[in-house]
């Protein structure tokens, strides 16, 4: 049998041409449409329910993110103060500690009292004071807070509000520390109550200081006087005023007033 020109054992151009000329059947157009639609559905690009769903996918995702974010912020606001508090010295516990324990510590001398103090020595007093002001319960004793913040003597005490200036002064000194704490809050939101306690106005800070608990440092000031009569307290106050330790004297005076409410105060012991 003779092969066509260009033919080899697996190719026959003449046969191929003949076949191509007669081989023209095509699938019906309805099949074309059905298969194309199926292909689009498979990749989610066709006009199907899947596409309808994908059209809502973005808004629904955004709504879910917003709801979750708001929920998390609200939860963190509720739990924020409790979260930070364990990291700090427990001021409230110190403030409400039984007087017996304080007196017992005083009897053991200054060194022993210092050892019992839970305030870390490395912590700047301003930071400690500010944190305590931020987290202070409302019924805490005010004057000792100021001692923790400042050793400088503020001038011109206002009658009827003896320690306010002290607190304001202390607030000025702790401003950088408050900024640090605000930065911490921005990164980890805490409760609104804590935010308002660290408000930017000096009055607000003073209020926070007034409501602060008794800092442990303050107790050291009079640890050797706890069993002494009122005269000793007044004598110490007068000594400190003469020495220029106005802030300490004010703290001591406040404690003295608390211990001896009916004691008439001499002029040299008055708040300055």
């Amino acid at each position: 049998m003779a092969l066509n020109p260009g033919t080899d054992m697996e190719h026959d151009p003449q046969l191929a041409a003949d076949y191509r000329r007669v081989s023209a059947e095509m699938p019906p157009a309805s099949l074309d449409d059905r298969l194309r639609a199926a292909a689009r559905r498979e990749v989610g690009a066709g006009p199907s329910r899947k596409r309808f769903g994908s059209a809502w996918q973005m808004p629904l995702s955004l709504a879910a993110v917003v709801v979750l974010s708001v929920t998390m912020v609200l939860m963190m606001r509720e739990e924020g103060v409790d979260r930070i508090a364990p990291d700090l010295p427990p001021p409230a516990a110190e403030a409400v500690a039984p007087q017996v324990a304080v007196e017992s510590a005083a009897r053991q001398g200054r060194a022993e009292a210092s050892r019992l103090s839970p305030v870390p020595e490395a912590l700047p007093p301003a930071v400690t004071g500010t944190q305590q002001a931020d987290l202070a319960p409302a019924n805490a004793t005010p004057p000792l807070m100021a001692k923790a913040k400042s050793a400088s003597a503020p001038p011109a005490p206002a009658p009827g509000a003896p320690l306010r200036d002290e607190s304001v002064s202390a607030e000025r000194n702790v401003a950088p520390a408050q900024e640090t704490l605000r930065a911490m809050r921005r990164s980890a939101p805490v409760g609104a109550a804590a935010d308002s306690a660290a408000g930017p106005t000096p009055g607000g800070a003073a209020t926070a200081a007034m409501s602060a608990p008794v800092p442990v440092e303050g107790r050291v000031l009079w640890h050797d006087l706890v069993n002494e009569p009122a005269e000793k307290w007044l004598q110490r106050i007068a000594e400190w005023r003469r020495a220029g330790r106005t802030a300490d004297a004010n703290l001591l005076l406040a404690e003295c007033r608390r211990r001896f409410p009916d004691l008439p105060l001499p002029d040299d012991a008055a708040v300055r």
Partner: protein
Amino acid sequence: MPTDPDATDETLMLGYRDGDAAAFDILYVRHKGGVYRYLLRQCRNAALAEELFQDVWMNLIRARAGYVVQARFSTYLYRIAHNRLMDHFRRHDNHTVSLDDESAAAIDEPVAPAGLQPDISAESRAQAAQLLTLLEKLPDEQREAFVLQQEGGLSVEEIAEATGVARETAKSRLRYALVKLREGMQSWR
């Protein structure tokens, strides 16, 4: 980015795998005729060929996520078609269809497609009908090898891969098919 209509089959299939539905449309237009005629020649029933044709493309659509280029796309596509055809034959136990069988009545008579190419003369139509008749008479495997070569443009190696046989087997089938067809068409040349 719009799909490149001149892209290779493999690129288009990868594009479809990655979510480009337009790539599928181009692939479909390129290969729908060949796949349909392959199935039609092998099962010799237009209705059945349409059903199998739909299954083949649906299988391709479903398998798109796992597509990787291991061979020419044509080989991949016709392997799907071959497997679907074999599956059908196994289920219906009519792999070997003889024109003498009772089922022959259900087989579409091979006719030259009229109207598609109006310039074809009566002699050419007769020649086409003769070629299709000869093709019908070929054993399934030999006919399959010839049709895969003509419709899918597959080489001997690719025919072997698509049909799951050794290269020499595919080569032998194709040779026998060509010899028989040439002999049958001798009177027209």
